[in-house]
Structure formats: C-alpha cells, structure tokens
C-alpha cells in the first residue's frame, strides 16, 4: 500500500452551511471534517441521508467552496473545478441527451481541452473498457439505466484524471444491475492507479468496493470512524459470501444504525439533501 506521505487529497477542517445563519433555511451540512485520501485507494463515504457526504465530495471537486476549511489536491489548493485532476460521475443522469454516447464522451474531452486527434481513440478506449463499444452511436434515452451509468463512467475515464469522484453512481439502479456494475468497476479499477472517492448508501457496495470506508455521523455531518477493508482488488464476486465480508458489513451496520436513527428524527427539519 501507499506510504503515509502519499496523499492525493487533503481535507482540513472543512465546515459548510447552506443559507445564512438565522435563516429558516440555514442548514449546517458539514462540521469540521478532516480527511486524507491516499493515492490510488478507493475510499467510500457512507452515512445517513443529509449527513453531508455529497457536500464533502462537491467540496473536494471544487464545485462548492466550503464556508471554512481547505482542500488540497496534490499541493494545489482547490478553489474551483480542476478538470485535469478530478473527474466526476454523478448519480443522476448527467449525460447530455442531445448527444450520442460517443459525442458525450468526446464533449468531456472538448471541455477539458484534449487535442482533437486524441479524442476519438481515447473515447473508443474508454467505451471498450466499460463494455459499451457497440452502443456509441446510441442516444442516452435508448440505453438502460445501467448502460447510461457505464457511459457516464466512460466519459469520466476518458478524461484520464488521477482522481475520480463518484456520487452514488449506482444509486438509481436496481439491485442486480448494481451488483454487476460494482463487480465490473472493481475489475476496471484494479487496472488503473486512480484515486477514487465513492459516495454510497449501500453497506454491501461499500465493503465490496472500498479500501477504506469513512462512516459519517448524522447532520451536521463529520467523519465518525474509518474502517479498513483489507482485501486485494479485483475482488472475487464470492467475497460477498465470506465471513470476513459479513463481519465488516455488520460492523459498518453497527456504526451506522445509531446515526440513521438520529438522522430520521431530524428529518422533520427541512434542508437540502447532502
């Protein structure tokens, strides 16, 4: 594994609130959170809804400037999107419906500033990697939810960034599609050196994919505990049937359960979802 100095993302004392203090809409989403993401690891953020895990992801990606605290990628402070270093995969369908799959992937590279001649081969490579090579002429509306998320993943991969931020990328999919995509992702990522931060609701997904899992407390969220998942990638689908998997999952469940209870009792409070 990587040495302690090999940090890809450093989050220091980040707090974030939505709205003005004293406002009815004022929500403290994230409270004094610090975190080091190691180079090449897959870190899962898990926690009750509204705990600020997506807020943290957006702060890391420069889409949200935190109220206080700093984020560094390498040694660069994050003050806005860093398209050369960080790529996103969103939960919702963030593919452009007016572009084919191929055009979607290429458009990401147009935005990032990849030379024209490189776009086509890189897009092809990324689409082959996610198993969508035959569908590059299709529009997103012609694909299933799972295929759309594969296309979104291909778009992010083609940007060849060191860091990948995934915000519940399989959240809208059914359990079986989710499982297959998770397995494929594990294989795919074991071949790359990417650093990945992955937000999820699913305990099983977290244990199956992650090198480490950060458990969030209820709002205002902060990291309660980080658990190591010591299992080499790519992970065998049978991993989920092992006792080790069950133990880790149960431990996460224990940590989360209390926080979910708290979050549910807060849920009468209106505010933006994390």
């Amino acid at each position, binding site marked *: 594994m990587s040495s302690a100095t090999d940090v890809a993302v450093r989050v220091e004392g980040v707090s974030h609130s939505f709205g003005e203090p004293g406002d009815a809409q004022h929500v403290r989403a994230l409270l004094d959170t610090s975190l080091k993401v190691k180079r090449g690891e897959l870190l899962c953020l898990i926690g009750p809804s509204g705990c600020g895990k997506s807020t943290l992801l957006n702060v890391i990606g420069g*889409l949200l400037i935190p109220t206080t605290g700093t984020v560094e990628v390498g040694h660069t402070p994050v003050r806005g*999107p860093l398209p050369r270093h960080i790529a996103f995969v969103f939960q*919702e369908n963030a593919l*452009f419906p007016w572009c084919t799959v191929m055009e979607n992937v290429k458009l990401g590279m*147009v*935005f*990032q500033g990849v030379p024209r001649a490189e776009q086509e081969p890189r897009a092809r490579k990324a689409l082959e990697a996610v198993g969508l090579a035959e569908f590059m002429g299709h529009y997103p509306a012609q694909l299933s939810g799972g295929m759309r998320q594969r296309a979104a993943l291909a778009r992010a991969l083609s940007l060849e960034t060191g860091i990948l931020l995934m915000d519940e990328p399989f959240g809208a999919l059914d359990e079986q599609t989710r499982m297959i995509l998770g397995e494929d992702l594990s294989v795919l990522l074991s071949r790359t050196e990417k650093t990945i931060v992955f937000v999820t609701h699913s305990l099983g997904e977290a244990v199956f994919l992650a090198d480490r899992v950060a458990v969030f407390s209820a709002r205002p969220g902060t990291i309660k505990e980080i658990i190591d998942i010591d299992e080499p990638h790519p992970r065998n689908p049978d991993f989920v049937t092992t006792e080790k998997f069950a133990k880790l999952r149960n431990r996460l469940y224990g940590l989360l359960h209390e926080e979910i209870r708290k979050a549910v009792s807060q849920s009468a409070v209106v505010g933006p979802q994390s």
Partner: protein
Amino acid sequence: MSARSEQRGRWASRAVQLGFVVGLLALWYLGTTYWGISHLLLPNPVKVWHELRDVLASGDYLPDLRITLTELATAFAISCTAGVTLGYVISRSQYLIRVFEPLLAGIYSVPIILFLPLYVLFFGLGPASKIALGTTISFFPIVLNTIAGFGYVDKIFIVAARSMGASDVQMFRHVLLPAAFPVILTGLRIGFTVALLSILGSETIASLAGLGHRIVHLAEAMETERMFAYIAFVVAIAVVLNSLTSGLERRAKRQ
C-alpha cells in the same frame, strides 16, 4: 407488428381527415347547386375554382402577396431578434426571471389586436402599422419560450459541464443552446403563426394593400366568387407556411 399496426392507424386517421374535407366540399357543392343558397352569400365551388385559376393565371395576386409576405418577414425578423436576445438576457438571472416572466406572460394574455387603432394612428394605414402589430404579437411567445428554454436547463448538465472544465462559450454552445433549442423553436413556430394571423387580420381591418385588404375590397364590391378564390389562396399559403415551419421544427427536434 406494432410498427405495422401503428402505420395502419396513421393511414386510418389520414383517411378520416381527408373524408371530412371532402364531405365539407360536397356539402358546399350540394348546398349551392341544389338547395338554393344565395350565390351572393355562398358562391358555387366550381365557379370559385374557375376564379381561382384566373387569379393564379393572371398574376393578379402578386402585388398583394408581396406586401403581405414582406410585412410578415419584417415583423418576424424583428420579433425573433428582439425576443431571443431579450429572453436570453432575462434567463441569465433568477431575479430577472422572477420579475419579467409573469409580467410578459400577463401582457401576452391581453388581446393586443386592440392596439391596432393606436398603431394606425402612429404608423399610418400602410405596412408599418401591420409590421408593428405582427411584431408585438409574435414577440411574446418567442421571448417567453426563450426564457423557458434557457432559464430552466437541468442543473445537473451545467454542473457536469463545469466539472469537466467547460468555458462560458463552450457552456453556451454545447449545453445551454442544445438544451434550450427545442423550446425556443416551439416559441418561434407559435410566433410565426400568430404574426401571420395578426397581419392578415389587421389588413382586413384598416389598410391600403395586402391580401387581407384585397379580400375585404372584393367583399365590399360584392364579388363573392373572387373573394372566395382569394380566401382559398390565402388558406393554401398559410397551410404551406405553417407546415413548413412545423416541418422545420420537427426536423430540428429529432435526434
């Protein structure tokens, strides 16, 4: 199989539509030939057909057609430019949308044709007052649809493009414009239709020339047959223009 039955369904509804038109024509013919309807009120369709052929062959319609189409083109060009530009500017700020969208929608619901006497007073009986009215009436659907198109682009597209490093120009060209385009196009089609309607209408009310003027003139001279020939001619032109714009809209929206 389903594509086939869909095809059959489409043919069936086409047949009913055609049957309806043919039925109306037949009623018209029967009414005027056998049932003694006054020829001054409703001329015989066969005679109207002869008149129409004469109008077309003589080129009698050309000066009026030119005037009406020039008015339409001018009015539509002005309202497109103004409506799309203003709509885009308003759509850039939530505050401006909150202020202007209800205001414009409110004015749109006023029957603007009532301003025609005022416009005639301002711009005279010539084409200028028709252009002013056509512009005013078609401006509203265009500006409102442009606001709706640019102002309500799904935020996830904008966030995604921003995360990938899109510049302002790229954001406009690759995200805002394609997302807004179908909605704006609908506004343009509606704008075109109402511009045509209001220009023809205002020509029949107060004017010196144009197809609407010609129709009223013929009515006043009791030349009902020729008047009906002109009405048929204008209807045909309106159908051609409107199906042209709808066709363009459909084609641009298909992807």
